[in-house]
């Protein structure tokens, strides 16, 4: 079977003389998580709304699995779950009612409905509220239900517009875990966010947009190494299961190929400044594993992405 894809072809959106999105060409294909970054008003939500036919393009096309969203919305969105802005649910309905409505719209078999609804509501930790009216819910609780609605039909493509909006820190962390778990289920996730640590933790690739124009779309590591303004060096945060001594850092880790510097952040984490290709990064990871230092995580630092982001946005001012 083909892999899921979304594609913007010369996609533009104008409101009078204001150009919200200008000639966007972007093709994302395969099972991955792509972070969509940009400052307020950059065109992120506009893009996502065009992909769900909430607004009409002034020019160009938004395609999902090769199908034009505007020309054949029903077919194009058949395998898409979306969360755009923070939707409201009829206050008199319960999450069970609202999710049943979505399940029926999507043709989910009656036999699976109850079980599936209870599963997705449990995933967003809202089991206790399943039969309470939504009108009594806080913004964060509604957002959890919106997330469960997007996940309900197990769509192969997820379009998420700042999914952590309105959530408390625990909620944000739970959303991150949900998105991470979806990556293992072979989904294409296109997610706008202001939270750079969230993007750097979850996403494999990033697309940056500003003033309605795409600035870059590439693998996260490539973007960071190309645009961080640090001479192609990237910063990698390493999580450990146990404490590490200074000697191991200075003698063993600092001498590994491509490592510019290494420093201890906290008891169980390291920050490595690294220069090299993706293949060199792969080797660094295997070298760190071989050192048996209790490595549990390895990802580009959010501060590196932040540097990159600020450099990119500054350049377009």
């Amino acid at each position, binding site marked *: *079977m083909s892999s899921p894809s979304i594609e913007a072809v010369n996609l533009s959106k104008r409101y009078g003389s204001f150009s919200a999105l200008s000639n966007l060409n972007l093709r994302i294909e395969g099972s991955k998580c792509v972070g969509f970054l940009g400052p307020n008003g950059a065109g992120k939500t506009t893009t996502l709304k065009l992909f769900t036919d909430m607004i009409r393009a002034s020019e160009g096309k938004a395609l999902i699995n090769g199908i034009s969203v505007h020309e054949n919305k029903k077919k194009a969105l*058949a395998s898409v779950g979306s969360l755009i802005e923070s939707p409201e649910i009829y206050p008199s309905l319960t999450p069970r009612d609202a999710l049943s409505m979505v399940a029926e719209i*999507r043709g989910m078999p009656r036999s699976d409905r109850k079980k599936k609804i209870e599963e997705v509501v449990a995933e967003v930790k809202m089991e206790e509220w399943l039969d309470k009216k939504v009108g009594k819910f806080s913004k964060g609780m509604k957002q959890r239900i919106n997330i469960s609605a997007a996940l309900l039909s197990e769509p192969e493509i997820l379009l998420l517009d700042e999914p952590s909006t309105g959530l408390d820190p625990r909620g944000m962390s739970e959303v991150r875990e949900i998105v991470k778990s979806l990556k293992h289920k072979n989904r294409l996730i296109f997610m706008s966010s202001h939270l750079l640590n969230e993007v750097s933790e979850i996403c494999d690739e990033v697309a940056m947009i500003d003033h309605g124009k795409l600035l870059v779309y590439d693998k996260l590591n490539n973007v960071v190494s190309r645009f961080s303004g640090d001479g192609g060096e990237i910063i990698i945060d390493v999580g450990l299961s146990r404490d590490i001594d200074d000697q191991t850092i200075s003698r063993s880790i600092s001498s590994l190929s491509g490592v510019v510097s290494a420093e201890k952040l906290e008891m169980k984490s390291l920050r490595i400044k690294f220069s090299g290709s993706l293949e060199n990064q792969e080797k660094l990871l295997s070298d760190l594993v071989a050192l048996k230092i209790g490595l549990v995580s390895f990802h580009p630092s959010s501060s590196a992405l932040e540097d990159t982001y600020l450099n990119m946005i500054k350049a377009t001012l």
Partner: protein
Amino acid sequence: MSNSSLKADPIVLPNLPSSIAQIGVMTKYELLNYFRSRRFFILLIIDLIISSIFTALVAYYGVSSFATAALGFYSFWWGNSITLVVILSGIFFGGDAISGEFQNKTGYFLVGNPLRRSSIYVGKWIAALTASLIILAIYAAIAIGNGIYYFGANLPYQFGESLIFSVLYLIAVLGFTFFFSSLFKSSSMSILVTAILFLFAFSLIQVIVSTLAQQEPWFIITYGSGIIGNVLTDPYPTTQTVRGGFREDTSRVFAVSIPEGIAILVGYFVVTAVLGLLLFERKEFT
């Protein structure tokens, strides 16, 4: 490797219900929303209050003060009040049906799903019609109950016709209110404008056009609704030239005929339903 193996397999899409089935889903949950919220019950209470006032009036003054036969009784009761019940149903269930999806952002929950906007519009319209028909049925049942009590079980056939015309008027009113609801993004604005139009503006324009301009107000929906009350009058009223007033001038008193009334109501429904649907299809969730 063969050419065919290089070709990507098509994406297998989930089997979605037909648009008709999706309209059914929308209707079901919109009705659930009406019944769970206070909206339906507030209109039901108003419905019962109007019925109670009529029941009390007839009981207090005696039925002979209002009518001597069943047809006159239904003309007094049904003919005088059903248009108000229909208009209130239109305002309650149609006034913000579409604008509310924008203002309250409930549309964002629906529109991102694989269903046509027309399915949302039609589903909501059918739900509004169903809820209004329940209100109408309760109102009719109370009127019939009183009629049977005072004049026996022989219902005049004209009442059946009036009932059918009331449903036709309801359909036209809901078509119109949904159209107005599609024009605005603010719930309160669409409800207010609809209420002003039906409760004051149309009647005022009708009076001005027919009395002052001496023209038949065939383009006013409330003029078309005149068939609901006219059919309960025997003989059926016709347009007449009368003499009167300060200078003994002649003037025409217009009475809408049944074919004319049906044409006005059907025309209003068709035009406003098509326009409302087009507006909703094109409206953006900005």
